[in-house]
């Protein structure tokens, strides 16, 4: 009865029938109370977005998998302390972190959000070393500014590591060996593929696959069905945990990988891992694996149903089950595009995976190790269907046990692949991740041109995916090249119109370009896609701000903040609005909030610098601009402001030096030249100033302030005719009303030479 119930639950989960799953699972737990079943129930709750329920039922449990699930529930409920104690109990200093890479990743996130950067970095690195395909960890490291080069992380050694993980689980428990059995794994190769011959997998004691939904957005997790242990062993549960919710502003949705497993004889375990609800809110992790064995018949049916495009997609399946105790390391494989079936032996069809969307998506599914033992087979099928799939797939170091006699075969994804192929498959994935990782790392370091070059090395099919195009757009944005950014982002929208990743930056680009039609259109689309995503509201706020309605814009940014308080950019934008409304105190608070979330958010440092500059607290202002410049050393705008501040602090030589740097950094930026001229003028080096301004005239011939300043200088030099000429031109270029008044007043005074400073003083 237990087995049947478990199977039903997992089946329901696979088909997203959460209510059914929860009901049946509660019956299961009532009938056979055990921790394993409790974990399954928690999984159901987490899938159904009821983290609080999972929290309550798992409170106090001690097994590793339970602790991991409990930590995920706490994290979703924002109870970071409890999550941390669950993962890493205080009294057990050397205790093992449940679920290996995933556990470390979750712990890293917790440390990051509680301001313990070093520990966070440490754990992300550990996670990556255990599972080199854990892209999300690498991404976090980049954001924290502590990522090593991608070639180091996603290196060939990593490929070997992955292979080892596969082979490693060939546990020596001989009794479970399937030597007697065939390892024919049902290939989940094609769903519809006929060649699936029922394979029996021997499971070592009890393969329970329980899927754990990692995705709080309802990723489907496959719950492993309790399998009848072949040998009558106890059912083990393997849980796969997946992804900790990334609070980052990813709205990516990971496509649910579907796993299929081979079917063990007699047990119907369906592993279908689907993850990925494409919910726009952050979640990028994909849940991985769950292993289940499915009935072959079921498999076909399911596959037929679930995958309309069967052949090509396939996530690697890791079938690690060879009956041996496989430890669970399941690598999550998700990657539609990335895994190009390399892992499948001979499944040519698999290789035809044509990634549809994708590529690097932040969510990834990975499979966590099941510490409990159990067999984990996971087969993931990436359902690339519209979902951005996470590109990185980590292989579950699932037990791909190639328990073959020759030892060279490895089970991956239900297909027996040879060890060599596994490595080559892994290498291909790593190669892709290397390029993407390098690009992302460089763009986090704001070396934008290099990042763009890195992304250009990607094959076209990967480049033309929404994540990559958004990143390209962001890079152009940082280079202050708004037209290119606009192009890149609009392409990204064409490719994936439902994706919200990076759309907040796109709205800022449109704001800078003053394209109010496009911006309002974008806002409408985003809001109708997802009313609960902070990016949509950021776009709307930018729209109002462009129309100078700062109060409404502020309200809207507040809404974005309430929707996701870990979205740093919303805080920064609120800060900008406060400054526009001249409410500096609240502005400072907002910027500081943004910095608390992400201390490398240079816009917030810049914002603070500007506030202090306005308030004439120049030392503070210098410090903050300096910090901003440290993070983003190529920004000519920040350099020019730093220069003006230095000049205000009377460090005029340094000021001029920085201005020159700024001029060199970006030739298209006219501001540093203008500021330099200003500085020179106040240093009374009129000729130099005039020289600079003459040059500037070439760059920006229609800028009234250039002529006004020149007029001012000529007036100081008592060259009244020239002054008059320039003031006249300045007036023709339609300056603002205040400036009109100032210039006209200056003209009047021309005829009354006046050494005392007049109303031409800076306001």
């Amino acid at each position, binding site marked *: 009865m237990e087995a049947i119930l478990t199977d039903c639950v997992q089946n329901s989960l696979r088909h997203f029938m959460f209510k059914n799953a929860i009901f049946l699972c509660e019956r299961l737990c009532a009938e056979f109370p055990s921790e394993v079943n409790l974990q399954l129930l928690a999984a159901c709750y987490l899938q159904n977005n009821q983290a609080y329920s999972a929290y309550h039922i798992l409170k106090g449990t001690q097994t590793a998998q339970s602790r991991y699930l409990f930590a995920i529930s706490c994290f979703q409920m924002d109870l970071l302390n409890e999550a941390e104690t669950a993962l890493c109990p205080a009294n057990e200093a050397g205790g093992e972190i449940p679920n290996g890479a995933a556990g470390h990743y979750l712990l890293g996130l917790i440390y990051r959000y509680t301001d313990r950067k070093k520990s966070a970095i440490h754990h992300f690195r550990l996670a990556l070393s255990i599972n080199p395909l854990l892209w999300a960890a690498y991404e976090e490291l980049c954001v924290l500014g502590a990522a090593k080069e991608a070639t180091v992380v996603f290196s060939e050694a990593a490929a070997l590591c992955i292979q080892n993980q596969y082979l490693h689980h060939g546990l020596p428990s001989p009794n479970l060996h399937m030597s007697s059995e065939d390892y024919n794994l049902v290939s989940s190769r094609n769903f519809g593929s006929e060649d699936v011959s029922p394979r029996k997998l021997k499971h070592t004691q009890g393969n329970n696959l329980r899927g754990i939904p990692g995705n709080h957005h309802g990723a489907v997790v496959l719950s492993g069905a309790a399998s009848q242990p072949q040998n009558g062993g106890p059912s083990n549960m393997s849980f796969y945990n997946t992804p900790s919710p990334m609070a980052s502003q990813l709205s990516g949705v990971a496509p649910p990988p579907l796993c299929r497993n081979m079917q063990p004889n007699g047990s119907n375990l369906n592993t279908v891992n689907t993850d990925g609800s494409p919910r726009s809110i952050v979640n990028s992790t994909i849940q991985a694996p769950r292993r289940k064995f499915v009935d072959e018949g079921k498999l076909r049916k399911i596959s037929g149903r679930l995958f309309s495009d069967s052949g090509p997609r396939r996530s690697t399946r890791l079938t690690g089950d060879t009956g041996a105790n496989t430890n669970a390391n399941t690598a999550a494989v998700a990657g539609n595009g990335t895994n190009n079936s390399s892992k499948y032996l001979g499944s040519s069809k698999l290789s035809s995976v044509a990634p549809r969307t994708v590529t690097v998506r932040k969510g990834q599914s990975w499979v966590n190790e099941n510490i409990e033992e159990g067999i984990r087979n996971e087969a993931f099928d990436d359902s690339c269907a519209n979902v951005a799939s996470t590109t990185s797939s980590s292989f579950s170091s699932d037990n791909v046990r190639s328990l073959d006699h020759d030892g060279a075969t490895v089970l991956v994804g239900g297909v027996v692949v040879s060890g060599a192929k596994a490595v080559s498959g892994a290498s291909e994935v790593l190669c892709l991740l290397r390029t993407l990782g390098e690009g992302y790392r460089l763009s986090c370091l704001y070396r934008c041109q290099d990042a763009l070059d890195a992304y250009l090395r990607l094959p076209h099919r990967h480049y033309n995916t929404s994540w990559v195009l958004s990143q390209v757009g962001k890079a152009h944005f940082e280079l202050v090249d708004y037209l290119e950014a606009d192009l890149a982002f609009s392409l990204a929208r064409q490719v994936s119109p439902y994706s919200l990743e990076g759309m907040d930056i796109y709205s*800022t680009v449109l*704001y*800078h370009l003053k394209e109010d039609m496009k911006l309002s259109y974008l806002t409408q689309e985003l809001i109708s896609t997802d009313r609960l995503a902070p990016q949509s509201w950021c776009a709307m706020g930018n729209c109002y701000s462009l129309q100078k309605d700062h109060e409404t814009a502020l309200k809207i940014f507040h809404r974005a903040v309430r929707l996701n308080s870990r979205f740093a950019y919303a805080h920064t934008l609120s800060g900008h609005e406060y400054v526009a409304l001249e409410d500096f105190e609240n502005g400072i608070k907002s910027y500081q909030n943004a910095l608390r979330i992400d201390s490398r958010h240079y816009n917030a440092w810049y914002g603070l610098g500007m506030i202090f*500059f306005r308030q004439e607290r120049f030392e503070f202002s210098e410090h903050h601009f300096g910090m901003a410049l440290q993070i983003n050393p190529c920004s000519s705008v920040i350099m020019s402001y730093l220069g003006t501040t230095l000049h205000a602090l009377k460090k005029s030589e340094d000021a001029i030096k920085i201005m020159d740097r700024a001029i060199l950094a970006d030739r298209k930026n006219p501001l540093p030249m203008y500021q330099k001229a200003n500085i020179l003028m106040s240093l009374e080096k009129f000729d130099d100033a005039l020289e600079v301004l003459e040059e500037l005239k070439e760059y920006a011939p229609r800028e009234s302030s250039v002529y006004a300043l020149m007029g001012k200088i000529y007036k100081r030099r008592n060259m009244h005719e020239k002054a008059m000429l320039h003031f006249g031109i300045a007036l023709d*270029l339609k300056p*603002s009303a*205040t400036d009109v*008044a*100032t210039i006209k007043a200056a003209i009047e005074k021309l005829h009354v030479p006046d050494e005392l400073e007049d109303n031409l003083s800076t306001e």
Partner: protein
Amino acid sequence: MATESLELEEEGKIIGGNQHLIVDDDLREMGKKAAWSVSSCKTGNGVSSLRDDNLENYWQSDGAQPHLVNIQFQKKVKLQLVVLYMDFKLDESYTPSKISIRAGDGFHNLKEIKTVELVKPTGWIYLSLSGNDPRETFVNTFMLQIAVLSNHLNGRDTHVRQIKVYGPRPNPIPHQPFQFTSREFITYSTVR
């Protein structure tokens, strides 16, 4: 500055009013930063009705003329335009007919800067504070006082439905002598 009004300005007389409130983009409403007070009011029709963006309710005075609306700022501000909403058709004898605008540092040194006569105003009335000299585009002051000196048909008390005060937008870039006008400059002038 106010645009297309139906009024005729001759010797400070304004006839009629505007249906719509249209103000230049480079002006912004400054009233939120000020403390508003009135010389007298009837219960339920107090000073808040002047600032609530609702044209249905009005401030009604309750005392001797002149009726005063005082607008006090915490620091000196540049003001350019005052806009009032009045409706002769609804308010008849309560509608102001002569208005004087005074400015200064406080109650002790207010000086009149503008007087205007209204003839059956219905709608928004734009009163510009600028002088003829380009140097006098703005009035730089701590306090503004709007005095209703007399009403239509010799009414004693007055109704005013809304008052807005406008000044120039500050330079978005602080400590700059001039504001930027061209696209290249503006694009590069801030980080958002």
